[in-house]
């Protein structure tokens, strides 16, 4: 047995297994740090930056920050939460998010995070990008308007489904999700409604057809309890101590 090691999160001790990152260790110890592109079943990615924490006077994405004994990490501070609110506002402004008409409302991690962080207004001018939907597939709909570029579907399709259905293309603000078909249409890929890449989408991009609104709004996942409570239940315990390696 390796010696028990700990770091400090907001002044309280959090145990970790060498190889874990700060976010992984915190979640498996029942401590919540807001996050969006991190998913317990995948290698930390570090792109959304919502899980940013402060340590040693500098900011780091906690999902990729290796846990070290004696590290002092500040997360639940007004400064960090304000940063997180701004980042979530940025994601709302970047895409076209109309929660009242979205099938994912109540099951959406972005929306839930917005509520949990106490987001009260848009904050920024919206970009209103032109992103056509892809309804070609008989049982799935792709609504790119809601994509937050977390790459979970890319990772799930490559690592779990073994299909490489999704990729990222473009650069900067023009970065966007594409599917692996010469036609560019989802119908011409080998995706199935049961694929991990479909289930893993945290927002309303990859939707199953003909099951919309089966659960009424008000009775959905994050209507019951906030995302901060549910994220802890999802965290694997005991944690899978997967060392972070380069993630792209």
């Amino acid at each position, binding site marked *: 047995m390796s010696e028990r090691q700990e770091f400090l999160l907001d002044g309280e001790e959090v145990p970790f297994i060498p190889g874990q990152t700060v976010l992984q260790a915190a979640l498996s110890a029942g401590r919540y740090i807001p996050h969006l592109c991190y998913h317990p079943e995948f290698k930390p990615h570090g792109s959304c930056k919502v899980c940013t924490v402060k340590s040693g006077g500098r900011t780091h994405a906690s999902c990729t920050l290796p846990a070290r004994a004696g590290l002092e990490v500040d997360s639940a501070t007004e400064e960090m939460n304000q940063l997180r609110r701004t980042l979530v506002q940025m994601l709302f402004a*970047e895409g076209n998010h109309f929660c009242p008409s979205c099938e994912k409302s109540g099951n959406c991690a972005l929306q839930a995070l917005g509520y949990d962080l106490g987001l009260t207004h848009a904050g920024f001018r919206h970009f209103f990008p032109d992103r056509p939907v892809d309804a070609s597939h008989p049982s799935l709909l792709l609504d790119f308007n809601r994509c937050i570029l977390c790459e979970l579907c890319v990772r799930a399709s490559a690592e779990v489904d073994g299909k490489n259905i999704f*990729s990222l293309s473009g*650069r900067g603000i023009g970065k966007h999700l594409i599917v692996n078909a010469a036609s560019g249409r989802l119908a011409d890929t080998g995706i199935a409604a049961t694929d991990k890449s479909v289930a893993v989408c945290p927002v309303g991009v990859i939707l199953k057809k003909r099951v919309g609104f089966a659960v009424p709004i008000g009775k959905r996942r994050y209507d019951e309890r906030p995302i901060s409570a549910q994220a802890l239940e999802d965290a694997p315990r005991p944690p899978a101590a997967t060392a972070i390696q380069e993630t792209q």
Partner: protein
Amino acid sequence: MVELSWKLLLNTLVQRHGRNPVRLLQMLREVQESKGWIAPEMIADLADWLGLPGSQVRGVADFYSFLHTGGPCRYRVLFSDNITDRMQGSEALLDYLCGRLLLEKGRVSEEGLVSVDTTSCTGLCDQGPGLLVNGWAIPGVTRERLDQIAELILGRRPVEQWPSDFFVIQDHIRRAGILLGSGLKPGEALRVASQRDPVSLLEQVKASGLRGRGGAGFATGLKWEACRNAPGDQRYVVCNADEGEPGTFKDRVLLSRYADLVFEGMTLCAYAIGAAEGFLYLRGEYRYLLEPLREVLNRRRAEGLLGRNILGRQGFDFDIEIHLGAGAYVCGEESALIESLEGKRGIPRNRPPYPVTQGYLQRPTTVNNVETFCAAALITHKGGDWYRSIGTPKSAGTKLLSISGDCAKPGIYEYPFGTSIRQILADCGAEDAQAVQVSGPSGRCIDATEFGRRIAFEDLPTAGSFMIFGQERDMFEVARNFVEFFAHESCGFCTPCRVGTSMLKGAMEKIAAGHGTACDLGEIEALDRVLNQAAHCGLGSAACNSTLDTLKKFRPTYERRLKSLEFEPAFDLDGALARARRMTGRDDAGAHLETEA
């Protein structure tokens, strides 16, 4: 017939690159160069050959500015859009060429003949405005030159047949020091090193106090040592010649005039760390240097300075290959550069692990700037203590500066560290400077009160860009140019940089259009904070430097553009009708909304 020629090209291309997916970017670049674009079927064929998903190949192609998947175009003209190009009249020249060719900026002409657009700094600031035609650099553009270019394009004359004097690029070495004036002959430093063991070479570099010349200033000796000691049986040397920081062009000159010194430094590094393979990652804008550099490599192989048993020393094997970039500033960040070398999208990696332990193909890799390798060669020849005696205690040696902007003698200047800005301004003939941007848009903007400051890691660190702005220049426009640059070059990986740089650009546009308010200045400051705190790499955290500095030092240039209102919406009602006006061909009073005067 197009079909047949494509299959033929594809076949030779794929074979030459050993069907290796790591070579994807090089293959795409070559397809672009010979076909003028990368068509969907070419992507599909390449993906098949390499066993990659087509979407991944497309994702790589669409990441790089010089790879085009949108449609064929025989002549792609790209005007360098650095602030120094603009100061030399590039915007009016671009409009002029568009007029001559009856084109709209950024759109390919109907018959697929020509397009005219802008690109980030091409490194010709001392002889601008610069442009690229199908990737080939042309300096000192004038209206007369554009008339000639327009004739050649309309006459469909291949670029290879254009007059060669269009493409002559000057070195403009104005002040040579220990490096530019060393007169070191090919192999001279290597001979010194190969008589000793690698560790003593490492000790020399450590003793010299040499720090990386790419801007970050990490101790070169420590980097080499960490790489040498990292576990693994294959190591790599990578020379970062992706000189993308606007206003920098010293690596262009080093690679044109001192290529042997660069390769010598890389070979020395290989000797010190125990590497057998090296790469020079050359920015796409310097495409014209590819063949001359390959000739230098061939000569060095023939002279026994590269290849097997270098200088007769058993087991000292090392060779260098040149990889070309394709228009992505972010690839100057070392881990993004490695991703790009591996044929991927140039996204900076999460660190740790660092390249010295897990770099190219996850193996120990030393990445250094062009100038760093040159300095290492010099140190090997003359000794670490000698080098350390030059400069300041914390910044040993000399620094090359690329000087451009409002001065009489733009060009390359070599100074010992510790030289004051005032001295530099006097030497290059900048009599009436209002401000200097030190180390490019990601560096700092300093005003006249700070001209006593010095070029040094402990005062004003610099990667070499030195842009001078005279009294009549509008510093708001300077900052706006830089903000546009970052928005264009953001890789898009992390939220703060991808969205934040575009928001910053939007806020600057709003102020430039005369719709800004105090509220917008507040938004800029908030965005600066987020970029600083949360960006994934140096590009994002530096993206706010120019607005931060100019807001602090030249605030009146922002304020005089503001409306006195507390808030004004960015949405322009009348502007929203512009498309409808274009479609109906109307522009009369009735087609405009009344605006309150």
